[in-house]
């Protein structure tokens, strides 16, 4: 049976529901506040592969975007991440992340010089590469797969960081800002598919990209969890 916008979006929702990232030990530990400080420190270093390298992802999406309306939307994301002037009181997102790092005792220099695990390096290579492919693939990877995981859970992570390790509101702002910023991409998914996916092959491609990206994120999580356990 052929795919359409509705069926594709339903299938994407099912993939996320089946994946249950919140049940993975790393995320579960963060959400429930059961991890030790050395583990959270290692997480902070490894997870930097996303927020401290974000320009590699959104920037490429901006370059490859063929449509001025969509470019406006992505330029907004780039501006917010580079300056924080839309939703983060003028604090750039890399700075939000450094503050989280400092809150758990990881200095900026340690963050910049982090020795990333292979899963993190693989994720960066995959994610950068996808954001450089066709716009449909880039947005599917970024917004329909990667950013769909997290919102709704990040506030809980922030609360436990405050409670367990005495982080300030400023130091958990990275988590609270992103809990809202990435909140609802279903509207974007619909617009993307209606505008850029016209044939069965396009819908299949979107599903394949979302599936692969979820797999890559699971790889990142598993390898990060491995080094976190070594650090414990």
């Amino acid at each position, binding site marked *: 049976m052929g795919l359409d916008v509705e069926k594709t979006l339903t299938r994407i929702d099912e993939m996320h529901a089946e994946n249950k990232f919140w049940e993975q030990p790393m995320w579960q530990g963060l959400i429930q506040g059961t991890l030790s400080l050395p583990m959270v420190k290692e997480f902070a270093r490894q997870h930097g592969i996303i927020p401290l390298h974000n320009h*590699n992802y959104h920037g490429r999406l901006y370059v490859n975007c063929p449509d001025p309306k969509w*470019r*406006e939307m*992505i330029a*907004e994301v780039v*501006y917010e991440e*580079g*300056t924080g002037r839309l939703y983060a009181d003028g604090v*750039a997102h*890399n700075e939000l992340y450094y503050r989280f790092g400092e809150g758990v005792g990881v200095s900026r220099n340690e963050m910049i010089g982090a020795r990333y695990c292979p899963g993190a390096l693989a994720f960066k290579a995959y994610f950068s590469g996808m954001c450089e492919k066709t716009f449909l693939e880039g947005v599917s990877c970024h917004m329909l797969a990667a950013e769909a995981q997290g919102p709704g859970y990040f506030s809980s992570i922030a609360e436990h960081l405050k409670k367990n390790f005495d982080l300030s509101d400023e130091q958990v702002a990275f988590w609270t800002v992103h809990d809202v910023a990435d909140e609802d991409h279903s509207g974007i998914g619909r617009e993307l598919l209606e505008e850029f996916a016209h044939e069965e092959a396009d819908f299949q491609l979107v599903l394949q990209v979302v599936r692969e990206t979820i797999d890559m994120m699971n790889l990142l999580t598993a390898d990060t969890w491995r080094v976190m356990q070594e650090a414990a």
Partner: protein
Amino acid sequence: MALTTADVLERIDAIHKERSNYGHPLWSGMVDGTHNLEQVRYFCKQHSIITLHNHNYHGRLYVSCPDPLWRERIAEVSYEEATGRLFANGVSHHKLYLNYAKGLGLSKNEMYSVDYCAGALAFKAYFSDACSRFVEGVSAHMLAGEAQIPGLYARIADRLKEKFALEGVALDYWYVHDKADEDHSDAGRELLDQFAETDADRELVLHTVRKTVDVMFVMYDNIWAQMQTLQ
């Protein structure tokens, strides 16, 4: 002897003086109002290789930028160009350019299906590539490409108004950029102090500025050659 920041900036000024946009008949004709409507229309179409393709340039600079403070600045430029919300009353820069084209009688469809000349395509290829490496990208973009705009664009706008009765939104593209690109000497100084510490780095900056101006003139020559057939 090692090149100081002042030496490099002085040499860059000399490169621009040696080959100024105003010295090229394509631009002097725009400023002096000696082109006919067909010629200006042709130039408008070809020049869109910059304005309607800008995300290829600034976007790549953003990706290749290694420094958060510089990224903040480039994110600002990208945001302004895609939304116009900082300096252009919320009119994105591609829209500013389409408004100018419309003033000349060119439709949106025509602007999005331009048959670009080889010089314009060469410029896009060169510029996109340069912007993929930060020091070269900023040198090509801010120290070469945008350096000759301020002062020139407002005069062109005045002439377009006088000669072809363009007004209001049809001229905003020229006025906005006359201001927006006003003074990049500070950016040049910061770039050199922060990212070009060795003589080799500074030579690379100078080489890039020189090469970029050369490629821009290849584009101008090619566009001008075609414009001359539209008498």
